[in-house]
């Protein structure tokens, strides 16, 4: 699999796919997409990279172990869920900023939650795939 074309293509595909995954994540509230799908796409990007350059290089690129992503994402999701509770509202009430941000659009606790889902899914997919490919 270590062909030149594949490697070169991956160099371009990785940032593109990651951007695309974030795009999917952000548009999720209005159009098809969301954290789950975004996470899967991001993990595909990294898996492609691993195929092209070897797992060791992908791990170096990621800097943190994918295992770390799972608790981080979970914490983010839980945080977004209890955020309204701290303000005296029932858990998981949607909170929104009054004005939309440029590019991103309207930001609320739902986006934070979706970001948590994104990170967890990325962490889970990469953990499973990396572990399996290391052990076979």
């Amino acid at each position: 699999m270590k062909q030149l074309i594949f490697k070169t293509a991956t160099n371009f595909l990785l940032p593109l796919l990651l951007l695309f995954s974030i795009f999917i994540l952000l548009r999720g509230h209005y159009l098809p997409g969301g954290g789950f799908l975004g996470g899967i796409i991001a993990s595909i990007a990294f898996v492609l990279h691993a195929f092209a350059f070897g797992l060791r290089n992908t791990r170096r690129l990621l800097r943190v172990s994918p295992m770390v992503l799972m608790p981080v994402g979970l914490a983010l999701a839980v945080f977004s869920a209890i955020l309204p509770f701290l303000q005296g509202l029932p858990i998981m009430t949607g909170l929104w900023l009054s004005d939309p941000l440029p590019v991103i659009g309207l930001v609320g606790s739902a986006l934070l939650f979706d970001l948590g889902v994104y990170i967890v899914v990325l962490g889970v997919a990469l953990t499973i795939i990396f572990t399996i490919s290391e052990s076979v």
Partner: protein
Amino acid sequence: MLLAVLSGFIVASFVPFAGKFLRGKWSFVLTLLPLILFIYFLSYLPAVSGNGTQLLSFNWVPSMGINFNFLVDGLSLLFALMITGIGTLVFLYTSAYMKGDAYLDRFYGYLCLFMGAMLGMVLSDNIFTLFVFWELTSISSFFLIGYNNENKESRKSALISLAVTGLGGFFLMAAFALMGYIAGTYSISEMMGSAAVLKEHGLYLLIVIFLFIAAFSKSAQYPLHFWLPGAMKAPTPVSTYLHSATMVKAGIYLLARFTPVLGHVAVWNNTLMIVGGFTMLYAAFHSIFKKDLKEILAYSTISALGMLVFLLGLGTSEALLAATVFIITHALYKATLFLVTGIIDHEAGTREIAALSGLRKVLLPVALAGLLAMLSNSGIPPSFGFVGKDLIYESTLGSEIGAAALTAVTVFTNILLLYASILVGVKPFAGPLPDAFSKVHLPDWRMWVPPLLLGSAGLILGLFPGVIEGSLISPALLSIDPSAPLFHLQLWHGFNTILGLSAVTIFGGILLYFFFKPSLRHDTWLEKLYKSSPKQVALQFSQHFRNFAAVWTRLIQNGYLRIYVLIIISFLTTLLAYKSFTQVVFYVDLSQISPLTSAELVVMTILIAAVIYVVYTPSRLSAVAAMGVIGYCICLIFVFYSAPDLAMTQFAIDTLTVILFILVLYRLPKYITYASWLIRLRDGLISLFFGALITILALEVLNEPTQKVTTQFYAANAYTLAKGKNVVNVILVDFRGIDTLIEITVLTISALGVFALLKLQLNKYDQEL
């Protein structure tokens, strides 16, 4: 109030971060927590002694009637004061007893947890919060009993006690669910009003049986008593706190709390009398043959608990008063004796009763504490125990049925208990001091002051029972028995039968001490008895259960993935087939099916071709590729039926799955047909059946009228309530966000599972190399 109850949990959650600090000489700082709580609960005393009960509510899940309602009345205050008061002394004692322990901070964390759970339990007015705290005491005591987790016996004892008390918990839940259902309220104070309804309901018997099993398991009544002696493997502060003063009294508390609601019925009273009476005699009898100080105490505790149950069973006002007083006296003297035992164990290094003597010469204050506790335990005047014992005899004598027999049993039990208390409280300190113990010295004051305080309290209360009579005992009695008449506690009743019985008890016990010596003959005889004891039965049962589980697992989950799939699918097929062919009228409404478009036709053809290819291809890799094709075809079908979210996700997932498959299959050997044609036929048939069934179900679903209400709600409110236009996503992150949260948690767990499984395998491989 909420803060007071939850403070144990809050402190416990911060203890791990202060580990280093607490392990050192600052460990006694945590003593402040129970002390502050003790003072806090004392402040309720004036209000409660005026018979003003206080109900404090904090909403938790109001929609389900589950709230933090705390009821401060005499009974709960009595227990709360015991928990925090004895807790203070135990916390102090621990800081010296466990000095230098590597995990002292953890131990304190467990203790705080336990204290919080206990407080929550006795103060809860809502049966479900009561249940939650009840279970929390079981769980925290599991950690405390198994604290020496490197000791196999200790782990086993912790497991047994968790199993027994956990079993009780199940029954408690069942009893509470029934009671809540019948009474129509989850509040205990409101249930008092519907006592008559509960008692006349057809399920009354069931409720009582469930409640009794729960109470008996926690309070170590025969035949569920056997976990308590084992729990003595725990460090002494734990035995003191949990197994004498607080946790084992939880069952007693439960029975006392529900006496006004469910009590004064023949079944209730007779069962309690029989079980309690038998337990107190059985355990007292066993206690005199034990040779380990803690074991003697364990059995005498079971016996005392039996007596409490017995008194609650008698159910007369005198008996309930006697029970209330006995709860206090027992907590005071038994905690003292445990603490004394702990000091002996700590300093002399043994708990063998035969080896100990003469320690008064080196541990004078401890000996004094032991003596005081013994006085109270034996009911020798002027201790508080004497007051309590008098009340017990008074209530048995006043019983309507078999007064003489009941009194005889009680007297006999008390004689045996007195013998046991002399053995623990006096024997180690009397006589000459052996050379082996000449170097024993008095421990830190933090260890000997608590037992001395508790011991003296028994004496002071005996001399001046008026101190707590009106303020504590009377309100407590009134919460068990609202119609109880006024009473007056006193040390001296004049010369009467009761005094005679007390004298008989005391002399009987002392005579027994001088003339009874355990011998080898007793041991062999007891050994036989032990073989048929409930503990053996329970252990045998658990052994058989484990064997059965092993066989069952080998049968169903034998490690071959194909067998797992086979079993799951055939079970599902059988179940679905049975259900749909016996209870559903089967018909297909062809008019509902939309006409086939040409695009669909193409996709379908590819799909079917791919499926056939997967089944017949000789190459593993091409099978995977064909599976990918199937997945993508399904994506297309989703697109045709306007489900872009599903299609996109399916597309991404399919890509990942194919990658995963390739990763795994890459190194596997070539495809070889291992299975015989018979097995292939079997697998084929099962697959066909399963496929056919799913098809039938899919057609069947078309006939069912779809439930439109929820769909419409989501569609209508997605934008107005959640500011989202993509309904699917709004459902995922907002309407059903908790589901998603749980799902990603499950994902995480499964990823960790994969990681652990594979890495474990690697390590094993490494070791073999």
